[in-house]
Every structure is written in C-alpha cells, then in structure tokens.
C-alpha cells in the first residue's frame, strides 16, 4: 500500500460531550437513550450553542435490527433530538461503530463540508434473552467460519487468552487484576453500569448469604472471591464472568466543530490531532493471536498524524471488552511490551488511576458497561471530562493531561480505531 502522510484538511475540536446513564434501562429505547446523551452534551457546552446549528449527525449503532427490530437509527436519532431534516448517517462497525462515526464526523468537518456536527452512538441490548444476545453479538464475527464453529465473543477472546498464556506464561490472575483495577475506577463513575469495586461485590454477596441464613463465605480478599466458581463462573474458559464486560444499554455523543470557531463555545476546547483506522482478518487468518494487528496499524497512523509517541500520551481509554483485550491493547498501543510487561501492568499498579499510565479511568467497558454502538463515543466523553478536569471523584490528579487517546475495537479486531486528543 502506498504510504502517504495523512492529515486533516482543517482542524477539528470537541466543545461538548455527554452520555446517558449506562446499565439495564428497561423503560427507554435506543433513540431515547440518544436523546438523554444529547441533552447531557448540550449542558456541557460552556457558553451554550444553538443545536439548530448542527449540520449533520453520525450515529453509531451495531445491532438495533436484531435487538429492537429497527434500522435507520440515524434518522430516528435526528428526529428525537429535533434535528430532522439534517443528513443522519447510521454507522455500523460492530463494537467500534461510534468511533467510526466520530471519525466520519471529523472528516465531515476537516473536508470543509460542515462546521458543526453531532457524533455518537447508541445501543439498547437488554431486550433479548442471553442466548439471542449471544447470537446478535456473534454476528460481529464471521458467522460462516467462526460462529458456526461454535465461537462466541467471550470464546474468541478466550482463545486469544490461551494463546497469550501459552506464549508468554500469562496467568488468569493477571487477567483478573485488570478487572479489579477497572472496577476500582468504575466505582467512582456515577454513570457506570456497575459502580462497585469487586470488593464491594464480594461484601454484598457475604451480606446476602447472611440475610438468607446461609453459611457466609470466608474469602480472604477479592482474588479469592474471584477464584470461587459459585460466584465467578466460567463463561468461555479461561474467561470467567468477571473477565467479561456486561450487556449494557446506553448512548453517548460529542459536539465537533471546526477549530477556528471552537473558542466561541468554550475556553477549553480539545483538539483531535490524530486519527487512525484499520481493518483485520478473521482471527484464524491472522499472523498473530496475541496482538490485534488492526489496532497496531490504527495506532501507528494516529501517532504519525499527531506527531507524538506512545510515551507522550498521558491517559488512555482502551477496549477492554474482556480482560485479555486490555492486556493486548496496552501493548498494541506501544505503552508496554507485548507479553509479561503488558500482562502484569495492572497488577503492578502501572495502569491504575494514580499509576504512570492510567488506563480506563472511566471503569472501562468492563465496569462502566459496553453498549456496543455507543462505546467508542463514551470513551471520548471520559477523555473530554478528564482533560478538562471535570471527572469528579475519579479525576486523574497526579499529572497534567495534555494528550489522551482512545482505542476502540470492532468485533475481535476486524476493525480498530485509535484517536488522539490534545489540550492546548
């Protein structure tokens, strides 16, 4: 492929970001989740703005056709937010749908076509019973050759975990420490699906046992709790329940504007300085099972465009749909060496909120939740709040956050998007 340095035709800034509460939301549909995120975004724009100035929408949605028997989510989200008749594009790229939507919106502004666009995503997942949700998610892999072989999503990532364990000696405890870390962060996120530490969950289970007059389990710590198959069963070996992100309803959106008008809306705009996207083969056709090649490529493109290096990034939101995914992500992004160094980063506190490279301070997909079509945009919402010092109890305080990154994987690595944000 011919290599040409890619750059944006003109600068793009974020001036607003918002999200719905994440969780099981039985009383609302996709479009209403999106409206909730939209109103939250509107209230985040410091000097306010007229939503009628929005010129186009880009809405990530992975599978409303399956979960809600509903397509045309772009137009429906325009309708509910009062933005009809603006062009509204529904973007589907599995779990990276909304990152691709963000990127398409960036290009809409960079091209000169628009000065202000709304980008984001929404997903309502809790409607279907587990077996059908498993089917709907599995449609993100190659159903002819992967799903038909019995692979589920937890199963595909579990396979990568077994390959990682075989090659690098990674242990299941290394994986579980990622979950513990992300729950420690998510416990401080009021919009997270499960705003609890794993220790909180363990104490809850003890209290429930006591209430029911059953013997109270005497786990010494959260790791011992996680080793108990009665409370942390295997989903797809070696992935246990606490290695997996939950099935979540939620939406998120961001207001993008041309950089020359950004200061009309806020004194603290954030600038998108790097964007990369790549596609990948089915898992069995890749040269490696312990890394996601598309993520490495997307990261390389984003770093090159931004003119920064992995070590310059202060914080990152990465795609931890399963614990092994975060271990691969922080290596693919160049933060840690692939193998033991990346596998032990969470356990050694390097990626903790007060660590040298905080990763998933929002709680990540693991704890905050993973409404697939909204996840990428929700990562950007966290970055928006962290970079502006507005993240409340989970604010990173041991550094100035001048550069941040999000890493969003579609399916098991058939799409990857990496974007870099700067505070000036």
């Amino acid at each position, binding site marked *: 492929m011919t290599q040409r340095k890619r750059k944006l035709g003109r600068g793009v800034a974020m001036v607003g970001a918002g999200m719905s509460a994440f969780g099981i939301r039985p009383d609302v549909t996709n479009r209403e989740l999106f409206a909730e995120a939209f109103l939250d975004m509107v209230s985040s724009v410091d000097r306010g703005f007229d939503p009628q100035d929005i010129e186009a929408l880009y809405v990530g949605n992975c599978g409303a056709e399956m979960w809600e028997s509903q397509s045309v989510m772009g137009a429906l989200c325009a309708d509910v937010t009062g933005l009809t008749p603006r062009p509204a594009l529904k973007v589907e790229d599995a779990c990276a749908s909304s990152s691709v939507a963000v990127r398409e919106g960036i290009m809409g502004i960079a091209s000169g076509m628009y000065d202000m666009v709304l980008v984001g995503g929404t997903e309502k997942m809790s409607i279907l019973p*587990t077996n059908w949700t498993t089917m709907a998610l599995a449609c993100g892999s190659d159903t002819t050759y992967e799903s038909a072989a019995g692979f589920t999503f937890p199963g595909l990532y579990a396979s990568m975990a077994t390959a990682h364990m*075989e090659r690098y000696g990674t242990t299941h405890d290394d994986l579980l420490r990622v979950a513990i870390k992300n729950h420690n962060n998510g416990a401080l996120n009021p919009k997270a699906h499960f705003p609890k530490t794993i220790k909180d969950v363990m104490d809850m289970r003890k209290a429930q046992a006591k209430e029911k007059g059953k013997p109270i389990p005497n786990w010494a710590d959260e790791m011992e709790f996680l080793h108990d198959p009665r409370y942390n069963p295997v989903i797809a070996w070696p992935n246990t329940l606490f290695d997996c992100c939950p099935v979540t309803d939620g939406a998120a959106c961001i207001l993008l504007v041309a950089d020359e008008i950004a200061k009309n809306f806020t004194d603290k705009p954030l600038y998108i300085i790097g964007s990369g996207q790549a596609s990948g083969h089915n*898992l069995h056709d890749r040269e490696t099972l312990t890394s996601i090649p598309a993520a490495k490529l997307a990261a390389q493109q984003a770093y090159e465009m931004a003119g920064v290096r992995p070590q310059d990034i202060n914080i990152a939101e990465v795609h931890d749909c399963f614990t092994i995914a975060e271990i691969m992500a922080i290596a693919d992004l160049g933060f840690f060496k692939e193998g033991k160094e990346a596998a032990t980063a969470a356990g050694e506190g390097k990626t903790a909120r007060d660590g040298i490279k905080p990763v998933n301070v929002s709680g990540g997909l693991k704890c905050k939740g993973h409404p697939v079509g909204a996840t990428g945009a929700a990562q950007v919402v966290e970055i928006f709040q962290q970079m502006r010092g507005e993240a409340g109890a989970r604010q990173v305080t041991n550094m100035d956050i001048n550069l941040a990154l999000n890493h969003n994987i579609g399916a098991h690595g058939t799409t990857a998007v990496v974007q870099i944000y700067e505070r000036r």
Partner: protein
Amino acid sequence: MKQIPFTIASYDKFIEDKKLMASKCVKCRAIWLPPRPICLTCKSDALEWVELNGKGKLVAFTVIGVGPMPMINAGYNRDKPYCSGIVELDEGPRISAQILGVDVAHPENIKIGIPLTATFVERGSWHFVEELARVKKTYLAFQA
C-alpha cells in the same frame, strides 16, 4: 471442465462430501482455507482446488458453556460444554472449528499443540430465522 467457483457454497458442498478443500494460488502457491476467490499474498485470481490431508495441531482454544443457538440446539449447555479452537493444518493455513475428544470438564488439561484430525459433524444452520436454522448442515470439526 468448468472450474468449480471459489464460493462458500462450493466449500460447503465439499464438506458435505467429507472433503476438506482449499484454494491454492496458481501463481504463488499459497494455500487458502477457508477457500478465497483472490489470493491474499499476490492478489491473483488464478486459483485451483486442492484437498488437504486434514491433519493439524491446536493453536488456541476455549471451552464454552453459553453458546449460540445452533450449539444450544445441538445439546450443549453449562453442564455439557464444548471446545472450539483454531487449528493449524499441516499445509499451513489455520481454521476455526469445534474440537472433539478433549477433556471439556477440565480445560486446564487441554494442551496447545496437540495433534488433531479433521472430522465432520452435523448441526442446524447459523440463522436467526427458525425455518432456516432448522436446516441441517455438515460442519468441519477436529478430533483429538
């Protein structure tokens, strides 16, 4: 003789006849399983069918208790889990398949690298529409 097209339907028909067929690039000799209509290495569309010997080794795996509908309908569940894996064939390519004859009750005993032989199983089809999901199909699997 007219060339059999390099399609999923052709591959499925070979599997139904219990033959593991791949596409081989006439130009660069690369072998593709699942078969492809365009060689990924040299981008040529000059391909031929070759039969693989069905021998390979396990390179990654999982044991699943919560499966998709075709596996549930085939009788698998939390109490009767199954193994799916990625198999590297003697001829080089890798493929996803169900792995039979391994200790699914003790996945920690399943070893990467074990030799495997192709076999064929019958299950319902992968489809959301019940009438189509009921249609039985032959799938590639591997026996430990």
